[in-house]
């Protein structure tokens, strides 16, 4: 184990330029990935805020019986998708309209009769704030006899859905592309390291070193490079985040777990690249 580690470290000493180059390229790939990740998590935050406002409103027929309405409110609250259901009476609606529509206050003062219907406003639990669930809840609410109409802004709920899908898809594609690039780069550096050490490897074989033993320093070396690349990438992302916050807009950074995941992902990429490469090239030595 001691020797394995020493051998892995030795490669950095023997080919410092190559090592720095490979760490830098991995760091850069992961940095671009990190920037994209920042965009995604900030978009996600924004989406979350919008989502919170997703609600289904059922307008009630005038003169809906109070007991039936109260019972309906309980029933609706019991739907698995529903977070809260609030009854808004005709008077509440008018008061709200007066408060929100200041310009029309005078007009409203002069009304003889309240034109606004009572309604039930329903908020959905997180995870149910998409088209299908919203539509399903709306459909069920239509079933109550005293409900006149149900509205839920189908259009922008659908747009929100599509935007989220697109963000995830682009994230996955870009992420995979950069991961592949990083794997190829690591593979190339391992290939060079294997060729550079071919004499040593041949001697190791002659004196009876197992393939696993010969392979280990290369795998370790790949993982270390990936790990370093990941750390540099998180550092660069943090610098970018600071700059953006200072000059552009208030945004969120990765959580500690996400940062650790990026670094672990770097190590995984390094390990994967070196595993693929070392097996192929050791055979030729």
């Amino acid at each position, binding site marked *: 184990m*001691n*020797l394995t580690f020493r051998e892995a470290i030795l490669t950095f000493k023997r080919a410092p330029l190559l090592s720095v180059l490979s760490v830098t390229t991995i760091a850069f790939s992961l940095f671009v990935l990190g920037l994209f990740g920042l965009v995604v998590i900030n978009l996600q935050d924004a989406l979350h805020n919008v989502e919170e406002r997703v609600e289904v409103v059922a307008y009630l027929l005038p003169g809906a019986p109070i007991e039936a309405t109260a019972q309906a409110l309980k029933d609706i609250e019991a739907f698995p998708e529903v977070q809260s259901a609030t009854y808004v009476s005709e008077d509440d609606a008018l008061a709200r309209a007066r408060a929100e529509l200041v310009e029309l206050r005078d007009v409203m003062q002069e009304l003889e009769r309240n034109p606004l219907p009572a309604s039930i406003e329903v908020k959905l639990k997180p995870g149910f704030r998409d088209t299908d669930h919203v539509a399903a809840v709306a459909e069920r609410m239509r079933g109550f006899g005293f409900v006149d109409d149900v509205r839920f802004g189908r259009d922008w709920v659908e747009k929100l859905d599509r935007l989220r899908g697109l963000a995830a898809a682009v994230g996955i594609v870009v992420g995979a592309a950069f991961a592949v690039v990083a794997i190829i780069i690591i593979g190339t550096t391992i290939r060079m390291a294997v060729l550079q050490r071919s*004499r*040593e490897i*041949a*001697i*190791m*074989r*002659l*004196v*009876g*070193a*197992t*393939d696993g*033993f*010969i392979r280990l320093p290369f795998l370790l070396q790949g993982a270390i490079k990936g790990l370093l690349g990941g750390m540099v990438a998180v550092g660069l992302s943090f610098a970018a985040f600071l700059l953006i916050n200072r000059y552009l807009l208030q945004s969120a950074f990765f959580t500690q777990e996400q940062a650790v995941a990026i670094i672990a992902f770097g190590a995984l990429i390094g390990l994967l690249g070196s595993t693929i490469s070392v097996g192929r090239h050791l055979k030729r030595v």
Partner: protein
Amino acid sequence: MIKFTNVFKAFPKGGLALKDVSFHVAKGEFAFLTGHSGAGKSTVMKLIYAEERPTSGEVRVSGYNVNEMRPREVPRLRRKLGIVFQDFRLLEDRTAEENVAFALEVTGARSSTIAARVMRVLTQVGLAAKAQAYPRELSGGEQQRVAIARALVNEPTVLLADEPTGNLDERATRGVFQLLRDINASGTAVVMATHDLDLVRQAPYRVIELQEGALVYDSAVDEARDQAAAP
């Protein structure tokens, strides 16, 4: 210990390197493998340390059947062998001591025992004083002694030496040859490939001669037959 039975070896891009070769080297024996360049000596060596597999026939080495050996058994066989080449094959960026220790480290020897074992073999080959020297600071004969020390450090039952004196002057040749004889005297079998016939005549050892891949003379067989034929 080492047994070849009707061994043929053909290389993909070459002709037949070995044709119907059969011989047996016993435990503790010293055997010369002679023949001109290209006769097939190195091929015999490669078959013994399982670098190559026979095309047909059977190769057995200290309990292993090289024909049907699995890849992961090869390292186990090699730990029972010591191998020395004409070109020494030392690592230039390591001292004599480190080159020898390398063979122990890569086989997972306990690190607490390595230094003592390395010094013991370096003393055995007469190079204890140059343990800290790098290969470029050593003469050819000294470099070959380091290689021999590396081959011995795993306490092999057989030492394979492929033209070990091929790059050495006469004095160094005599020294290295004497060292191999001493090693054999202490119980290790030695198979030495050489085309140096003076060396072969100096010692009363077994001689196996190859010619264009065929075994044309084996002193163990032919002398026994000659004696049987004598009145």
